[in-house]
Structures are given as C-alpha cells and as structure tokens.
C-alpha cells in the first residue's frame, strides 16, 4: 500500500476513534448508570480490549496508529509547540511500568469495569494527561515513556505479523539527511515530523516503541519506508541491538516490564475467579484481613513478585524476553473470552434493536477451546524462543520448566469459574424510574 494511502487511513481512523471517544464519554457520564446497560463499559472493557489484542495478533499495532489522544495533541501543537525535552533520568520505562501497575491495581480495587462514569473519566483523564505531557515536552514523550496502553501494545506487537521498515536498505545507506529521524525542515521550520520515539529506520529492529504513526514514512524523501510483513516473534529470536531501545539484555526496565506484563496477565485473569474469592474469604476469616486493599496488595505481591522470584533467575535475564509469547497469549486468551462471549450484548442496549436478543455471543463450547488454543500457541512460542536464543542447555531446561509451569497455571486459571464480587458498591443505588 502506498504511503499516502496509509497516512489517509491513519487520519481517518484517528478521527473515527476521536468521535467514538467523545460518544463514549457522553454515554458514560449521562447514560445508564449500570455497567451491563451502558455502551461505554461494554465497548471499552469488552470490545475495545478484545479487538486490541486480536488486531495485535493478526494485523499489527494499528490501535496506536489510530490513537485519538495523539491526534488531538497534534492539533493543539499548532497553537503551542513544546519547548522541553523529556528529563534524561526518566528516559526509561519505569514511569510507564508504575502507571501500568497502578492501572491494573485500580482496575481490580475500584472495579473500573462496573462503573460507566469512572470509565468515561478514565478516557477524559487519558486525554488530559497525554495533552499535558506532549504539550510540555517535545517528541512523543507520552507514547514512549508513559502511556500504559502503548507500553502494553509495544510488548504485544513483538508478536505481530507486521513491522515498519525500509523497503530497500541500500537507499538508507546512501542517505545523509536522515529525515526519518530528524523530520523535514523548510527555512528552519519543521514541516514534517520524524520519528518521535527515536527509531532510526536503517537500524530499527522489531516493533518495540513503534506506534505505527508513519511519520518516518511521511518524512522520507525517497518513499522508502513501508509496513512489511514479518514472522511473528522473529525480533525476539536474538538479542538485537535496536534503534531507540538498545539491546534488551541491557535494559533492566524492559526486562522488569516483560515480567510484569506476563504475570500481570495471570493476575488479571485470576482476580475474577472463584479461587480468588476463596482466598479472600480465607484471609478474612483466619488472618482477619478484611480490608480489600490489603487482600489485593497481597495478591499483587504474590503474582508480580512472589511467582517471578520463584520461577525466574536474574542470572538468565537475557532469556526473559522468551516470556513474551506466553504473556501475550494469556492476555489474548482472557480478553478474547469476554469479547467472543459478549460480542453482541450491545444489541439490546440500542433502542432500535431492542427486540433482537437471540444471539449474544459465542457459546463456551466454542470459546473455551479457542482460549486453550491461544495458551498452547503462547507456550509453543515461548519454548521455541528458549531454543533459538543463545543459552546453555542447563538454562534452556530451566526456562522450559518455567514456561511449562506458566502454561499449566494459565490453563488452570482459565478453567476456573468466574466469580465477580464486590462490584455492588460501585453500582448506583436502587431507584424507581418512570420511563416513557
């Protein structure tokens, strides 16, 4: 596809997502107060998340490409150009990791999915944060260092079938102006952006930190940048030195984030199952841990610290990226469950379609094998990486055992019955309403 076509689609998707965001904010703030009756909670927590992971698996990081926050940021930068550079001490993933963990914790503690108003405020908060950061600091500081969705997408897109790369590397080798990185200037005024996450196309390997914004393609005077197909996970087979990222074995923050990403996926799925409620009751009865904050904190420490401490050795840090296939497919298995089982549950919520309530989604007899299939694919992917990356036999066996344990644990979690409790406090109280 031509660069101009891709850019046209990109802007179209961004406008669509922007309009959708506005409509979801309105529905969340003024629509029905109950989550199952509100299109905002439905479309954000069920359809958006499901489509996001499926798009990452089948297409690529097109959700980052379609980001409405960045679209608005680009509009407002017409009025105010940021002057500052993102602080050097924060030029890593730690702030993004902190936000990601905070978001995971808030999701469970405040039952974000059960409140349309909170969901709407999350969207609003995202816009505000993205605009504050990117109107203060140059480049795509929000995307590269902070955005929790973006960080999730970057890691997941290492398994995507597409990547942004040079069409012909020999053209890049003869280039001396590097517009893909520096942008295009006319009379000292920047007329086209270069890569705002510092990914230099000739040295770029894989999808980490790539938002698919195609600014590099737009800036390239030789039309030498495109979206090309790749083997999913290929970028993880070796410890490549990546432009704008470096090598993963030297990035402790990224290694840590891969661990959080993987075990966070397990935690997110586990927290709404019956065993989680059983543990909560046990802790309340025998350890007098009745406060849900403490219970949740214990769960987080168990999954994000305890389990990794048992299963992963710091000495084998260069094999930590092999967790990514398993981690991504755990998220995919979980989100696709909700997406496929509740695919058409929005239909009764649309007044003109109120009567059509026959088919709400796919039955468990179809969805459950798909979930297991995803987990198995993740397991196979992780095992494959263990054997392709450089390592001694002893380390390979140790990591293979780690992946077997993760696979069995994720399989067990996905077979547990769902049991969501503690959401009533976030629902609106009873009231009698007269409707016409």
């Amino acid at each position, binding site marked *: 596809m031509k660069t101009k076509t891709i850019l046209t689609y990109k802007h179209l998707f961004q406008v669509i997502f*922007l*309009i959708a965001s*506005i*409509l979801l904010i*309105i529905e969340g703030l*003024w*629509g029905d107060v*109950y*989550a*199952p*009756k*509100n299109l905002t*909670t*439905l479309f954000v*927590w*069920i359809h958006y998340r499901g489509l996001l992971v499926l798009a990452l698996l089948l297409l690529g990081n097109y959700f980052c490409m379609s980001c409405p926050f960045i679209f608005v940021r680009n*509009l*407002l930068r*017409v*009025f105010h150009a940021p002057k500052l550079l993102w602080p050097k001490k924060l030029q890593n993933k730690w702030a993004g990791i902190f936000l990601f963990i905070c978001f995971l914790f808030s999701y469970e503690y405040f039952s974000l*999915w*059960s409140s349309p108003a909170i969901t709407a405020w999350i969207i609003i908060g995202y816009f505000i944060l993205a605009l504050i950061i990117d109107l203060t600091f140059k480049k795509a500081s929000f995307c590269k260092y902070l955005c929790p969705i973006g960080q999730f997408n970057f890691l997941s897109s290492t398994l995507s079938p597409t990547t942004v790369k040079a069409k012909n590397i020999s053209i890049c080798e003869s280039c001396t102006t590097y517009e893909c990185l520096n942008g295009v200037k006319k009379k000292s005024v920047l007329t086209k952006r270069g890569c705002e996450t510092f990914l230099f196309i000739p040295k770029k390997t894989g999808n980490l930190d790539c938002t698919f914004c195609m600014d590099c393609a737009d800036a390239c005077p030789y039309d030498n940048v495109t979206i090309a197909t790749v083997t999913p996970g290929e970028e993880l087979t070796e410890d490549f030195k990546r432009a704008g990222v470096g090598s993963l074995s030297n990035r402790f923050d990224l290694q840590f984030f891969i661990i959080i990403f993987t075990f966070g996926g397990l935690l997110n799925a586990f927290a*709404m199952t*019956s065993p989680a*409620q059983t543990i909560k009751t046990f802790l309340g009865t025998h350890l007098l841990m009745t406060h849900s904050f403490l219970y949740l904190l214990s769960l987080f420490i168990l999954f994000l610290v305890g389990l990794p401490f048992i299963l992963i050795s710091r000495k084998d840090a260069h094999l930590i990226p092999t967790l990514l296939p398993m981690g991504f497919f755990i998220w995919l298995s979980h989100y696709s469950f*909700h*997406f496929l*089982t*509740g695919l058409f*549950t929005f239909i*009764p919520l649309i007044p003109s379609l109120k009567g059509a*309530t026959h088919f*709400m*989604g796919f039955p468990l007899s179809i969805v459950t094998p798909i979930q297991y299939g995803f987990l198995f694919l993740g397991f196979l992917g992780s095992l494959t990486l263990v054997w392709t990356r450089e390592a001694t036999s002893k380390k390979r066996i140790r990591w293979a055992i780690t992946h077997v344990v993760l696979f069995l644990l994720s399989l067990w979690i996905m077979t547990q*019955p*769902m*049991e*969501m*409790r*503690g*959401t*009533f406090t976030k*629902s609106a109280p*009873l*009231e*009698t*309403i*007269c*409707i*016409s």
Partner: protein
Amino acid sequence: MKKLSVLIFIAALGMGAYHFKTRFYSPVSLIPQEEIVLTWGHDPSKITLSAPTKFTFNLKDHRQNFINDAQIDVEATMDHAGMVPLFSKATQKSEGHYETNLQVTMLGDWLLFLTITLPGHKPIKKVLKFQASL
C-alpha cells in the same frame, strides 16, 4: 490558516457532541417511591448454579392494596458488561404475587432489572441485586 482550520474542527466536534448529548440524553423523571411498593424474595435462599431459582415479587400500591394484572419483564445480568443476560416474564400466581424461574449461569454479583407495566400506566423500572454462590 492551519490554526483556523483546527479551531473550526474543534468547534464542530464540540457542537456535535453538545447536540448529541441534548438529543439523546434527556433527564428521566422520577416518580414518587410510594407509587409501587415492591417486596421480593427467592427460593432457595442461597442462589446456586446447579438448579433454577424461583424469584417472587409482591406488588402493592401506596395504600397497601395489591396490584394485579401487572406485566413484569425480568432481565437478569451480571454487574459486568458483556455477560449474556437472562430474560423472563413473571406471571401472576395470586393477588399481587408474581413469580418467575431463572437459572443463573455464573457465580458473583447479579442485577435484576424489572420493567413493571401497570394497565394504563407508563412502565416503571426497578433494579434489584443478588449474589450467586457455590
């Protein structure tokens, strides 16, 4: 020119949002709580997945008279978006007493949305909450 285009675009978005909100989100009017007095229960007392649960509803007006011939549409859904709802209609068994059977499909917090239509009146909604356990 660029700034003007951006301003026009933002203004158009804002006006569109305002128009959408006022067109589709008018405030609902509340009727006095006493118009319908609803008491309800379920059998068995512990709702499980293994067997259907009988939900009973008793309707009285503010003068404590039983309300008969009401149409009660029941929708049960989990307090989580995307869960498949259960639909049913409660049938009158005796004076002011209505029943329906539902077999819940998941453990956890459930919402019961009742749409009660009295003869010659506008429908009234009531929302009830219950939990399903092992």
